[in-house]
């Protein structure tokens, strides 16, 4: 029996099968996709992972790799199949300060890696707002972003190599292309594969030197439109802030009512949090440009964080904004669309119109510099009428962003949640090509089956036997 076999590998304590114990593994951080796994298994070493995956392969049992479960796409949920929890693999295996690289196990928490690099004046640049909980394995699987990815790039741009275990037991060393090595960029293909290609056993990332100077600005606007125009103006000017975040009034009020109150003015229609960093020389010029353009677009106040504590407080409000919004209603939906930066103002106006017309509490807190929107709606899922309006509103928002030439997801992944939009973005031939890429890694579709690409688009789907649970 599979359960006994897994227990023999990882110990009884590390295999969960009771409904009460599995409850927390029924969803990720996006409520609304609850699936009951058959079992959850938590290997403690690399060898145990390999043995567990081999046992699952022999048993013909599909599985879902899972890190911290902070995903926002219904990605790490398992419908009557096995959850492969990787959180116990949390060793920093190597940290080479001279070469500015670190090799970590997949369960290492994002912020823990930065903490390990801090004594060397280094940090791990991709900083999802969930960084104190999410794992590097989950970050690689989702190609996670974060506020500072505007300047420094997303996970893809920081992953140098990984050892990947395929569901059939094959272990492959993937490496980002280098000047002296040609070959297919399968490292790049693996990043963002949402647990559907295999399990990252270890990941080697680039570490980034801490900037010499950091300037954080809080700009206050009396209209959302002005704030959006300021973002477009700064980007078009060619200034590259390290982070450029926007919060609208409902978000500001939720943050200020929470324990994360950051001192954002309650009557502001929107605030922009802009950070510039790098070498000390030259920063002042960029700060002046941002300030001038913000005021020209109607900013009523632009202030600079006075010290590190003030900066941390301004950031805390932003990073905990989803948490704060989550407290004002029992449920929260979050989207992740990306739009051209020149189109921010008209698109935000249309989103506001959709919210008003359907009478939902649409809030915006997002990576404005990338055009990566996170429209979210706090609501009560037990109210059928409100739920229907919330989902109708989100659908309209997504259709709008697609029509504007955008994408349905910038960093959270497709998972279960956005599958329905995939064929609005891609023709069948392209979706089939994505299935073929997955097939090269996992032809039997044992890893996280049924996610990302709606199965009807896969050419060979009909001939693959009994893989989707």
């Amino acid at each position, binding site marked *: 029996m599979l359960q006994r076999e897994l227990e023999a590998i990882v110990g009884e304590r590390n295999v969960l099968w009771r409904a009460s114990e599995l409850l927390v593994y029924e969803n990720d951080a996006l409520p609304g996709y609850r699936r009951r796994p058959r079992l959850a298994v938590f290997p403690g070493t690399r060898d145990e992972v390999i043995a567990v995956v081999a046992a699952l392969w022999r048993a013909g049992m599909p599985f879902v790799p899972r890190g911290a479960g902070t995903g926002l796409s219904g990605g790490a949920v398992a419908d009557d199949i096995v959850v492969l929890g990787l959180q116990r693999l949390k060793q920093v295996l190597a940290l080479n300060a001279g070469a500015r690289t670190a090799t970590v196990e997949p369960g290492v928490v994002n912020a823990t890696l930065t903490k390990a690099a801090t004594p060397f004046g280094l940090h791990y640049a991709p900083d999802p707002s969930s960084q104190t909980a999410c794992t590097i394995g989950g970050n690689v699987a989702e190609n996670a972003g974060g506020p500072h990815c505007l300047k420094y790039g997303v996970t893809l741009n920081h992953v140098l190599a990984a050892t990947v275990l395929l569901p059939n037991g094959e272990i492959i060393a993937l490496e980002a292309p280098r000047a002296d090595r040609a070959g297919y960029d*399968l490292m790049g293909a693996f990043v963002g594969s949402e647990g559907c290609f295999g399990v990252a056993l270890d990941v080697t990332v680039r570490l980034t030197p801490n900037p010499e100077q950091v300037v954080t600005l809080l700009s206050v606007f009396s209209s959302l439109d002005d704030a959006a125009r300021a973002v477009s103006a700064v980007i078009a000017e060619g200034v590259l802030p390290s982070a450029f975040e926007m919060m609208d009034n409902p978000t500001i009020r939720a943050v200020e009512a929470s324990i994360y109150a950051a001192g954002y003015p309650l009557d502001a229609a929107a605030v922009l949090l802009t950070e510039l960093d790098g*070498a000390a020389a*030259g920063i002042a010029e960029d700060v002046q440009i941002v300030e001038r353009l913000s005021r020209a677009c109607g900013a009523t106040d632009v202030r600079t964080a006075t010290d590190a504590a003030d900066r941390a407080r301004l950031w805390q409000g932003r990073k905990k904004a989803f948490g704060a919004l989550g407290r004002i209603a029992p449920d929260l939906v979050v989207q992740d669309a990306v739009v051209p930066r020149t189109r921010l103002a008209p698109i935000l106006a249309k989103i506001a119109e959709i919210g008003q017309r359907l009478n939902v509490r649409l809030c915006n807190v997002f990576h404005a510099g990338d055009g990566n929107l996170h429209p979210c709606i706090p609501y009560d899922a037990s109210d059928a009428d409100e739920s229907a309006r919330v989902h109708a509103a989100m659908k309209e928002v997504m259709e709008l962003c697609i029509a504007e030439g955008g994408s349905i997801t910038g960093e959270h992944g497709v998972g279960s949640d956005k599958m329905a939009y995939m064929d609005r973005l891609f023709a069948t031939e392209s979706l089939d090509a994505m299935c073929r890429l997955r097939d090269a890694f996992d032809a039997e579709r044992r890893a996280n089956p049924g996610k990302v690409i709606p199965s009807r688009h896969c050419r060979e789907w009909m001939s693959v036997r009994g893989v989707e649970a």
Partner: protein
Amino acid sequence: MTTTSITNVRDLADTVRAAFEDGTPLRITTCGTWPESLRSVRSGATTLDCSAITGIVEYIPGDLTLTARAGTTLAELEEATARHGQWCPLSPWGTDAGSFGATMATATRGPLTTALGAPRDLALGIECVDGTGAVIRGGGRVVKNVAGFDLTRLMVGSWGTLAILTEISVRLRARPAVDETWSVPLDGDGVTERLHVLRQGVYAPLACEMFHGAAARAVGLSADAALVRLGGNAGFVAAARSALRTASTNAAPHDPAVWTRAREVHAAPVLQTLAGAIDRPLDRRVKAQFDPRHILNPGLFAESA
């Protein structure tokens, strides 16, 4: 050997599908600036000339993004973006007579790569025709995108052995307000090490390339030297300049036109041998998914079928 000229994606797809059906090997060329030694050698191949699939499809300066067809030359991109104070910082080893498509397909780097990103980092989305004649799109035109599995990274750098790129979207950069080139004599005395430290520091240059012996002479330098390019706003470059002078008191301003020659001279050594680059089982499975009959640039990687 026959040559077929292609002007649009539909014709390309039809041609490849026909070749797929009867197993005709295809040699893909665009501007033809790559040396012959780097092309497939199998006899009986039809040459597919894709240089007429050209033109900028969309360029929105305010978004710093651009989409162009594969046959567009780098010189055309340079000209279009320069007008808006922007650039597509591919600047690969070789010349701007080459095509956008080939640069992305070969993922060719250049002197700006370390500072501004390799082709895989700049690519936002692609359209291509695979070895079965399927027209495939991956990614998109916006600067952040994780919708679906990453066909963009797969195709960039695959040397036309999985698919033929027809259109690519990339992120652009604003040109630095100040952009100046210096030459630094490599006259011993630890200067190489100090330049290395400079490259790792906060005043890292946009480019730093060393030229020795014949290469130095070919670039027009009187002795072994590094070419260093400093870029940024006025305040940054002023500080970077003094950091450079600290690294070498002999650093001297140099004509920026030197980079054109430097890129050509440097191209020869970076043409690595491709043999064996795709010979792992996973590589072969990828190949089998996208070019099952091995008709695209066969033999380029000296791969086993």
